């Protein structure tokens, strides 16, 4: 167990702490990306949608953390051959991947800290609401980590990998209604929005803090779909996981 912890620490150090320490400018990117949408939505709505935008910022941060894992795993494996070095060592795949995923969350800490302060000022969630939000964000993170990991096993080219990562981030965390209520989307397009799990995450978060009102059935459905999608993505990731190439 102690060795597992050390292996995990190595992944965290390599994929986040050392980069944050040696290239502090990268932190700006992780803060700016979710906050820029928050600022735009808040200004355009004249402050009316600040609650939705803050929750959207959380969802985008968590989703992007998982998607960044895809680019980073591919980058470390294909460009630096790091994964081959690690495979030929006593490291367990679970410690390697968990550490890499944890590193992505650590990367998001500055953004999450800013969002938490904003949430405390503008949303004032209670304990139950905070736990509900935490559950949604955690599911979002697990699902996107699983998706990122699965996609990283397909790509051996870093340009393709980062392009893919950006595309999926945009499709799932920027276009769907996570920064604003789904009712702002014209009806025919609303059905398309429901194809994205982030839409359900946004709805649960907005309902939890009283920004929108959903029926019990709708809330139950949203939770069910979100949990089912996350589990399905995790199962696919476990099935696709290959420590030794074939």
């Amino acid at each position, binding site marked *: 167990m102690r060795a597992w912890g050390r292996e995990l620490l190595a*992944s965290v150090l390599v994929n986040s702490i050392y980069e944050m320490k*040696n290239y502090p400018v990268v932190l700006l990117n992780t803060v700016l990306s979710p906050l820029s949408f928050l600022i735009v939505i808040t200004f355009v709505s004249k402050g009316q949608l600040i609650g939705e935008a803050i929750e959207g910022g959380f969802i985008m941060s968590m989703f992007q953390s998982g998607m960044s894992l895809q680019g980073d795993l591919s980058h470390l494996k294909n460009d630096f051959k790091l994964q081959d070095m690690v495979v*030929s*060592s006593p490291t367990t795949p679970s410690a390697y991947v968990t550490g890499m995923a944890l590193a992505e969350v650590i990367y998001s800490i500055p953004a999450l800290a800013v969002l938490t302060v904003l949430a405390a000022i503008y949303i004032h969630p209670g304990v139950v609401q905070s736990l509900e939000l935490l559950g949604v964000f955690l599911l979002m993170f697990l699902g996107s980590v699983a998706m990122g990991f699965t996609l990283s096993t397909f790509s051996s080219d870093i340009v393709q990998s980062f392009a893919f990562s950006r595309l999926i981030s945009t499709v799932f965390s920027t276009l769907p209604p996570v920064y604003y209520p789904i009712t702002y989307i014209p009806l025919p397009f609303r059905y398309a929005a429901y194809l994205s799990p982030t839409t359900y995450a946004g709805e649960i978060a907005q309902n939890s803090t009283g920004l929108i009102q959903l029926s019990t059935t709708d809330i139950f459905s949203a939770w069910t779909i979100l949990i089912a999608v996350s589990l399905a993505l995790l199962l696919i990731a476990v099935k696709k996981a290959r420590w*030794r190439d074939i």
Partner: protein
Amino acid sequence: MSMETLLCDSLTKVYSDSKGRKAVDSVSFEVPSHGIFSLIGMNGAGKTTLVRILATQLAPTAGRATIDGLDVIVDAKKIRERIACIPQEARTIPWMTPKQTVLSYLLWRGVSYNEAGRNASEALAKVGLEAQENILNRRLSGGTKRKVLVATVLSSDADIIFLDEPTTGLDPISRQELWTSLTRLAEHRFLILTTHYLEEAERLANVIGILHLGKVVGFGTLDQLRSTLRYQYSLMVTSEAELPVVKEGLVTRARTGQTQLLTDESEAHEISRSLLEKGVKFSMSRVSLEDIFFHLVHATGQEDSE
């Protein structure tokens, strides 16, 4: 079968996207698991595929391989406790320092943080990088970056080390320095080294395997490989016209553009005396690994085309 050996038995690898072409084709050999074992071959000969199978990174299609009696598939966990690998084209991560590179590698091997820090500094000092241990990798020269990678495996307790073309792209001085580090590393550990620099294998290896199109076409010590050739001595002159009448031997055009005479020892001495008397400039040596390599690869090529 001795336990302290690296053994390959009909090892074969066919990649799913290779249209049936065998990257490694029924490779069989046994080599003592100490000193330096070098695999040489042209690009695409199968060296990296073979190393990746042995280093438990890639599954073979058929056959088996063992290291000191441990099967690379069945006993992968035990083997991974004992091996370390610098893959072909491995690079240091630019946003890390040499010390952070070695330290994190040791953490992955389960070493405690404090011990990893101490061992990292020691290993970097052994390859002469104590002054650069806290400089970002991206600021280091190509040769220094390679030394950082060597320090990572040097710092570990692994007693079997795979180095896939570790000196590719290095300048002659950096290469010499790295050879010194590798020679020191091989004093107590088993090194499996792939290279397409024949001089490197000739200089460092105890045993050499020659791969061509996925097959082993030559295997043994340098002397054993020499013995596969009919002639053991090589004489180089500027042009064939300078040579006296050759009773025994083979005149060829060397890759340097010079005329090369391959012959036996007595004929080599006789001709060299004659060349000295005539004042012709020449060089004489035992056949090199390069001569052996080209002979074996050429012979295999001819067999394949027949």
